């Protein structure tokens, strides 16, 4: 099978030390055209460092970092990216329109001010001063600045922090529109449902290395357990003896079961208790996978 992939940016064997701390320990990462990659990991896993290297803000101590086949500090390469940093300060006395016009001027073929503002949902804020905006509005302005240069690769570092649900949904829609246009996106987020909703590929980092990589579904299969919750009088001690149940707990009137074969368990369960009610069956989400992966890496470290 021949796959044709346009790589827009890559880290290969990237090592970065801050004093005695090894923030990146031989990280390999490839970003593909039109793909949304979610970069997850606990604090200190190396997400920010990886992004700094790709943006040319820091130099790798070893390994190779490429942005569009060039050095990230090369302005030609950076003219093809858009950036939304985690903590951004922007000149408070400039208006949203002025900020957009300035940022768009850095790019060879930027979007129009109106198009950028529309996409980020800030069209009604153009004449307002940045300082007069709420936190969520400021974040949307920063998103508008990130996309105004018609970037081929967009870095979004915790983009929806401080946004209400509606604003977040709008931003997600805009992100989907950008990937549909062929823009590659690197998203770091603490909201796992965000990665779940948007990402085609998820990379989980831990201690400066890739712990796991794949689609959201592939990652889920790491943790095959399904959770079953219902109201029942069945005895949890007896339930935990059933062959397909790995865990059984009582939580007040509810019981909680973990199973690798939920279909079989459900059939038996409904037979055993005709009065069973409020049944919920849920596959493991990214949150469980994430906990599992980072816990495993902790064990590995102790074993090493």
């Amino acid at each position, binding site marked *: *099978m*021949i*796959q*044709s*992939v*346009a*790589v827009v940016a890559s880290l290969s064997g990237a090592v970065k030390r801050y004093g005695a701390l090894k923030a990146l320990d031989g990280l390999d990462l490839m970003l593909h055209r039109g793909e949304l990659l979610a970069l997850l990991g606990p604090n200190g896993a190396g997400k920010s460092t990886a992004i700094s290297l790709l*943006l*040319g*803000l820091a130099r790798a101590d070893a390994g190779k970092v490429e942005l*569009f*086949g060039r050095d990230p500090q090369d*302005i*030609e*390469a*950076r*003219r*093809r*990216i858009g*950036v939304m*940093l985690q*903590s*951004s*300060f*922007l*000149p408070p*006395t*400039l208006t949203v329109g*002025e*900020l957009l*016009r*300035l*940022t768009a*001027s*850095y*790019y*060879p*073929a930027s979007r129009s001010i109106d198009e950028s503002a529309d996409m980020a949902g800030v069209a009604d804020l153009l004449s307002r001063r940045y300082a007069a905006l709420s936190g969520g509005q400021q974040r949307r302005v920063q998103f508008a600045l990130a996309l105004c*240069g018609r970037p*081929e690769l967009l*870095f979004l570092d915790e983009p929806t922090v401080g946004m209400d649900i509606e604003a977040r949904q709008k931003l997600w829609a805009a992100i989907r529109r950008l990937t549909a246009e062929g823009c590659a996106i690197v998203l770091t987020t603490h909201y796992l449902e965000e990665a779940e909703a948007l990402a085609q590929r998820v990379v989980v980092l831990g201690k400066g290395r890739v712990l796991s990589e794949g689609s959201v579904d592939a990652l889920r299969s790491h943790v095959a357990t399904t959770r079953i919750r219902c109201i029942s009088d069945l005895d949890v001690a007896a339930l935990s003896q059933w062959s397909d149940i790995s865990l059984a707990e009582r939580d007040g009137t509810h019981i909680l079961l973990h199973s690798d074969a939920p279909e079989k368990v459900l059939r038996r369960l409904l037979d055993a208790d005709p009065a069973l009610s409020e049944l919920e069956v849920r596959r493991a989400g990214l949150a469980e996978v994430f906990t599992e992966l980072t816990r495993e890496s902790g064990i590995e470290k102790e074993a090493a």
Partner: protein
Amino acid sequence: MSVITIHRVPPLPMPPRRLLGAYLMEARSECLRYFRMPGFLLPVTLFPTMFYLLFGIVMNRQSGAETARYLLASYGVFGVMSPGLFGFGVSLAMERENGLLTLKRALPAPPGAYLLGKMAMAMLASGTVMALLLALAVGVAHVQLGVLQMLLFLLMGMLGVLPFCALGMLVGTLVKGQGAPGVINIIYLPMSFLSGLWMPLSTLPSVLQQIAPIWPSTHLRELALKTVGMGQSPAWPHLLVLAAYGVGFFLLASRRLHRVG
């Protein structure tokens, strides 16, 4: 087996007109941004003009227009220094801390546009202060000045701010954030005094008179006196010293900015 072929798309070229536009847009944004900030604009314009009005004009009614002419040069230099030191130094120190500089470095802002923008802002602010002082000198103190003299005085202010921008930039790379205004004041106020901007050099102790040529402001004051027709020494040594200070501070600062960020 999967074979990954990597194809690269060539970048769009940046047309020279757009590049120039980006530099101009950056300068425009910096100017707008600071001129809308009363916390910056008021101290920078009011201190030199109020001092000149008070000590140069109101309290010198007896001594007349010649004293007002002499003090126009002194307070002019005092007014040149602060847009450079504060506008450049303090803002750089703040923006190194609050992340704006990081964002500018990540964005494809053209090389040096950020610094050139600040420079343009400092030049405009300094020019504004010079124009206000000239208006007071001519309009209130009745100092006789030709058009060429006024233009040269304005030019002295706008170019003379550059070595102080470079000094401010150096301080801005050494001190981060809130500490910068204090450090800048420790340089600004004593240097103004020691270079005879508040009291004529001849009234200062002889030791201080002897070390006065160390301060860039002493040299700018000589040039300012010449523009209003009062300097005795030739201009070029002072121009050279100021240029050397400007280039020297700038090189030190950019080296540090490159290494430390």
